[in-house]
């Protein structure tokens, strides 16, 4: 809030300033990023633990509800901060996220209004940026303070933190412990919290200094959608749903069987997958303790937190984890998204932006060419086919890798009789001196066009400056 200016024309520049002029600026940014990711992960893991140990059961039902609210608040805290650097990564991740809101039914009213409220216009621009900034620094933190207070009050004053079920529910009074047994704040609780705070501070700081740096891509450009944009990892499951891997094929299948198109006129995929299903899931999640209580009454048994007495609950939890992982995978670019093969080759070796892996806190990858660095890219024209076998040295190995990718496509074309791949694909890598300390690297791919509209050529060009080290 001191160095950052939430203006479309200033935001990115203030990021650069924070990273290059302000002492400890990058450290603060990295810690902020690492902390945010860990916070989301910790909240989700905590919720999982509470679910699996059945700690949401009476008398802690409402504490669970505030917990779900806190989960959503944590997501919102992280997500609203995502836009603020105003680089390509943040701009398009948030565009994807808010585009879901656009299809909230009825689209003409609810979708339109939500979109307008969130983005402050048809697309994200100055209004949207300021809104996300205010959400991030005022509204969501205030909500977080309120709900954290309620959550904490209920735990520390009303019912205590849940102990392992084996202890809290043990029939043997000698072993049984009451959760409400008091601990002294001084010195017990305070020293424990301070100790863990010190350990975590060290881990996060060391990680931010030595391992991970928060990425900063190019300035946001509404006219240029980068290939393979993704939402942040904790929303990838919704992005996976949006690709509609289950409902749409099922409807198509049923429609095929009964000979009637169920999809065309009746099914609005983004509304269902992006809004209705996630909302319903979250509503069910809120209701977990009450559903559980109802189920126990229905089955006519005593509520119990022990795993052996709640096999159904544990199974549901496991299924939830598995589907979260699978849907997250569906949300990554590995699933059901592919650009034309030539573009994919260009993206693999010379991505337009450094690629951020789907798993959080792994440093981004800027492609093998940028990684090779200015010095090692020797000026010249390299026909990739010449590097099929001999590959001594880093540079030639890179060319060999490129050749392998190109050859793979022409082999694919041969095998599929030109249905996929690139027939007779050839690649040339041209490295030119372009300016002082600036090289132009172009990967030129040529193949025999087989379909109408197929151009038979694709050039991927990047410029590389001597100083712009991509780690």
């Amino acid at each position, binding site marked *: 809030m001191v160095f950052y200016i939430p203006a479309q024309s200033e935001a990115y520049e203030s990021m650069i300033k924070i990273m290059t002029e302000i002492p400890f600026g990058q450290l603060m940014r990295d810690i902020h990023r690492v902390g945010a990711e860990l916070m989301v992960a910790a909240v989700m893991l905590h919720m999982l633990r509470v679910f699996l140990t059945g700690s949401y059961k009476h008398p802690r039902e409402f504490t669970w509800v505030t917990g779900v609210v806190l989960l959503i608040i944590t997501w919102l805290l992280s997500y609203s901060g995502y836009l603020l650097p105003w680089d390509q990564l943040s701009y398009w991740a948030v565009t994807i996220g808010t585009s879901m809101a656009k299809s909230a039914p009825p689209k003409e009213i609810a979708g339109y209004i939500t979109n307008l409220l969130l983005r402050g216009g048809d697309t994200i621009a100055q209004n949207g940026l300021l809104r996300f900034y205010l959400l991030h620094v005022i509204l969501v933190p205030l909500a977080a303070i309120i709900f954290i207070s309620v959550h904490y009050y209920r735990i520390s004053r009303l019912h205590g933190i849940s102990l392992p079920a084996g202890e809290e529910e043990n029939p043997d009074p000698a072993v049984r412990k009451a959760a409400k047994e008091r601990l002294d704040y001084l010195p017990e609780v305070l020293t424990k919290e301070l100790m863990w705070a010190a350990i975590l*501070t060290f881990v996060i700081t060391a990680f931010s200094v030595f391992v991970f740096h928060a990425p900063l891509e190019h300035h946001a450009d509404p006219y240029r959608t980068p290939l393979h944009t993704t939402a942040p990892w904790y929303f990838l499951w919704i992005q996976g749903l949006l690709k509609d891997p289950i409902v749409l094929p099922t409807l198509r299948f049923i429609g095929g069987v009964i000979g009637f198109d169920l999809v065309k006129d009746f099914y609005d995929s983004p509304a269902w997958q992006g809004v209705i299903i996630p909302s319903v899931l979250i509503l069910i999640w809120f209701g977990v303790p009450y559903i559980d209580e109802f189920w126990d009454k229905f089955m006519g048994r005593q509520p119990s937190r022990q795993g052996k007495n709640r096999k159904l609950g544990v199974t549901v939890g496991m299924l939830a984890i598995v589907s979260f992982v699978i849907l997250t995978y569906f949300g990554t670019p590995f699933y059901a998204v592919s650009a034309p093969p030539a573009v994919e080759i260009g993206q693999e070796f010379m991505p337009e932006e450094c690629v951020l892996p789907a798993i959080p806190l792994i440093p981004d990858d800027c492609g093998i060419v940028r990684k090779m660095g200015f010095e090692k890219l020797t000026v010249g024209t390299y026909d990739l086919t010449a590097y099929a076998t001999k590959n001594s040295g880093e540079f030639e190995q890179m060319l060999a890798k490129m050749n392998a990718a190109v050859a793979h496509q022409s082999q694919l074309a041969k095998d599929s009789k030109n249905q996929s791949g690139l027939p007779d694909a050839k690649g040339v890598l041209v490295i030119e001196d372009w300016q002082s300390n600036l090289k132009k690297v172009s990967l030129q791919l040529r193949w025999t066009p087989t379909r109408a509209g197929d151009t038979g050529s694709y050039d991927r060009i990047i410029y590389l400056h001597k100083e712009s080290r991509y780690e």
Partner: protein
Amino acid sequence: MSTQIKILVGLLFTFLTCLPIAVVTYNDLGRDLGMVGSTQKSVIEQRADALSGRQIEVGADLFSQFCIVCHGKKGEGISGVAPALNRKDLYDGRYLKQIAWGGNAQTFLKDTVSGGRPVQSRPDLYAAKMPTWSNQFGGPMRPDQVDSLVSFLLNWKDQAPEINAWPPAGTPRPTPTLGPTPTPNPATANLHPYCQNVPASFQGKTAPYKPDDKAALAAGKTAFESYCAACHGLGGRGDGVAASALNPKPANFTDKEFMQKIPLDCHFYLVSESQPGSQMPPWKALGEDTIWKVLIYERNFSQ
């Protein structure tokens, strides 16, 4: 765990945290604290260099999109169209002194790129008029893009060749050299020279709107009048207010014979990317949709 041990562990990690902080202090403040020699660069300085290097990379990309049409592939200038930019006198202050510019090369370039030249400074030498490029003045680039472009231009400073000073006023202007002569292709022989080599990515593109789509025509008219009419004229006859300064002249869309030589996909390509030697800037920043709307409006002139 006893309280003493907890306090001890907490203290230990607090001290341990000082290690990474010390590293960052050296990285970020090494210069200010005198720990980094004058020949070395501190980490924060290297980082600044890295980011300005990336800015130059972005500028190089923009230059190849927008500027090479008039200023040449490597800023060597195109005789009769626009001056060379890769020239020593532009960066060492001689030219700025000549035109009595108060600022430095960076501010001069930024000003000229952003606002263009409302009046040509050397109409005797160059046919093209520098258009406005910053979207603050109606051009296609954001201010940060202008900054990146300028940092790319400034990167010529060290290696720029000495190009002879500007010829005195009144020197006859050389005829503009058009782009490379396209290889003749029988399939496109009767098309306009600009349409001989339409890149494959544009070949066969069709308009998403019908020629009589009223809504699209109305939108196309608005866009045409704001972006195109200045040169091509409100009636599409190539007689806009700016046309007199241009050579070659803007296209006349009412000329049926001429328009037949420009198929729709080529037309879209020309508007999006422009052509070496043409005076028209590339308009792809308008977005495909707007361009198509403008196209069907333009092609209506010859109906």
